[in-house]
């Protein structure tokens, strides 16, 4: 025991271990198996540069790319009662929550923000599949209600990115009750004639599809996304037959009349700008030459009101 073993060695180790495990520097595309460099993927919004396969993207990364200059202000979501049923399977629900929070660095499975896209003010909500499968519990319900209320208050469209395995079983009936609750939120928008655009991303299933994710004025999906009520495995078990290739993918749903469009993530922002502006009776967008309203780089700025400035004299 001396100062070298106690102090120097751990330090040295930590320096080396940091260098030796550059996590996720390379990752394999689930679609084509190509090894992709992390910066290459993130610059391409987590879409494979080789085959165009859409991988999951976190709500924060999505918002950073969606909002002008990556600037938006986060909308606070009323905190629901924690673990209302005292649910326990092999693990306690609060422990599962803590693990998910630690793994994602997020509080819950939905992020709500407001800001501008192509100088078009919107409210956006994005579900986080990385957080307990994006499951819809009371927090997600509260988030959608908060998003709708904010959209109504500001008179802005709501763009919602869905991604979830379904309802959160650990909240039992209270998760199921988010189906009517979020439907009320959608009605608030419709009554005020505010556009509600749903972007369905991989995967959107179960009670989420059977409520707010299917009630949009415009329904857009990302390519290849699985969108269904009952998953393919459940159906195969029930009807005991193999399902056709591509069953329940975005393209399949488009062909069956369940969606308006299937749009590549890299073109999604432009499309959302075009659609929201037309529905809001705004003039056509000005493309390309808009300086960002915030800082030059894409750093996040959560300061309230940061997205509201527009005082830099660059307004169109």
């Amino acid at each position, binding site marked *: 025991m001396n100062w070298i073993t106690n102090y120097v060695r751990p330090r040295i180790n930590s320096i080396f271990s940091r260098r030796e495990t550059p996590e996720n520097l390379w990752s394999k595309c689930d679609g084509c198996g190509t090894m992709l460099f992390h910066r290459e993927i993130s610059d391409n919004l987590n879409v494979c540069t080789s085959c165009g396969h859409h991988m999951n993207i976190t709500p924060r990364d999505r918002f950073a790319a969606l909002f002008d200059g990556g600037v938006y202000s986060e909308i606070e979501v009323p905190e629901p009662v924690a673990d209302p049923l005292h649910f326990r399977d092999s693990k306690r629900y609060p422990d599962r929550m803590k693990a998910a929070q630690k793994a994602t660095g997020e509080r819950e499975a939905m992020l709500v923000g407001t800001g501008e896209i192509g100088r078009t003010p919107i409210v956006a909500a994005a579900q986080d599949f990385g957080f307990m499968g994006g499951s819809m519990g009371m927090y997600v319900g509260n988030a959608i209600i908060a998003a709708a209320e904010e959209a109504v208050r500001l008179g802005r469209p709501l763009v919602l990115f869905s991604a979830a395995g379904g309802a959160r*079983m650990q909240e039992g009936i209270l998760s199921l*009750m988010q189906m*009517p609750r979020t*439907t009320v939120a959608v009605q608030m928008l419709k009554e005020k004639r505010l556009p509600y655009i749903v972007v369905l991303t991989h995967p959107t299933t179960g009670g989420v599809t059977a*409520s707010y994710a*299917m009630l949009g004025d415009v329904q857009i999906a990302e390519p290849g996304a699985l969108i269904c009520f009952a998953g393919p495995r459940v*159906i195969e078990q029930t009807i005991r037959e193999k399902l056709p290739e591509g069953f329940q993918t975005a393209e399949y749903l488009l062909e069956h009349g369940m969606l308006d469009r299937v749009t590549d993530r890299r073109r999604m922002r432009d499309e959302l700008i075009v659609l929201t502006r037309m529905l809001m009776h705004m003039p056509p967008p000005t493309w390309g030459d808009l300086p960002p309203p915030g800082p030059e780089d894409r750093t996040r700025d959560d300061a309230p009101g940061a997205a509201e400035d527009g005082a830099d004299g660059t307004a169109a």
Partner: protein
Amino acid sequence: MTHYLDFEKPLAEIEGKAEELRAMARENEEMDIEDEAAALDRKARELLQDLYTKLSPWRKCQVARHPDRPHCRDYVEALFTEFTALAGDRGFADDHAVMGGLARFDDMPVVVIGHEKGHDTQSRIHRNFGMARPEGYRKAVRLMEMADRFRLPVVTLIDTPGAYPGKGAEERGQSEAIARSTEKCLQIGVPLVSVVIGEGGSGGAVAFATANRVAMLEHSVYSVISPEGCASILWKDSEKMREAAEALRLTAQDLYGLGVCDRIIAEPLGGAHRDPQGTIASVGAAIAVMLKELSGKDGASLVEARRKKFLKIGSKGLAA
């Protein structure tokens, strides 16, 4: 013949013995078995009382799914007059898992909609075991719109394992159909009352039960997922349905505590299937009370009250 559930086995034995004794006595005039048979009856009754006053959540699921339990059609036939079934979604087909139409309840014209499971093999297949396809929800939407237009209250009876997970159902937009039905429930400016008479299976139930008043029969259940489904996902073992049923809090009593259910309708001793007529009468009385509570309210305030009710759900959890 009574259909006994697995936990009723001891009861089946006692009742079987009493039955045997009586059969013997019928053949042999001199035999006096009345005392003995009466003692067995008493014992059976005590056992029944004992079993049914402390039904575990899983046992409640079993009772809720009991094949002899009165189903939607039984209620419609007994509680409503002039029932005139109206069929079809006007787009694709008529779904036999959902029955609905115009009828009179205490002489008042209403629209009644419910899941029907069927009572024997043939009718169960015809009814698809009460698992609706998109056409069923779209038929319900059509009927609710009609009710709204003609200012008729809507009564829905919930009894479904869930929406049908099939290829065609998915292709024709099962999720969209459910979402629209829930949406329609929230839009109509007429009283909407629901009774969960058996199984309230997930989204398939919500689509009809987003009502001003939701009542549940004492041993009915209402859940986000079946205990078997939950067990296979969270416990990775579908045999853990007892644990899952416990954890999900799917009983009428739990849902009353959570504010999801507004009223519990008592069942006869030994469950609805032991006295269908008595159960149907209690459900009828509850529907009458709920409709009376809502009568005289204008459309806008009914819609507003329904919204508020659902927005408020979840503001409190179960007591520790």
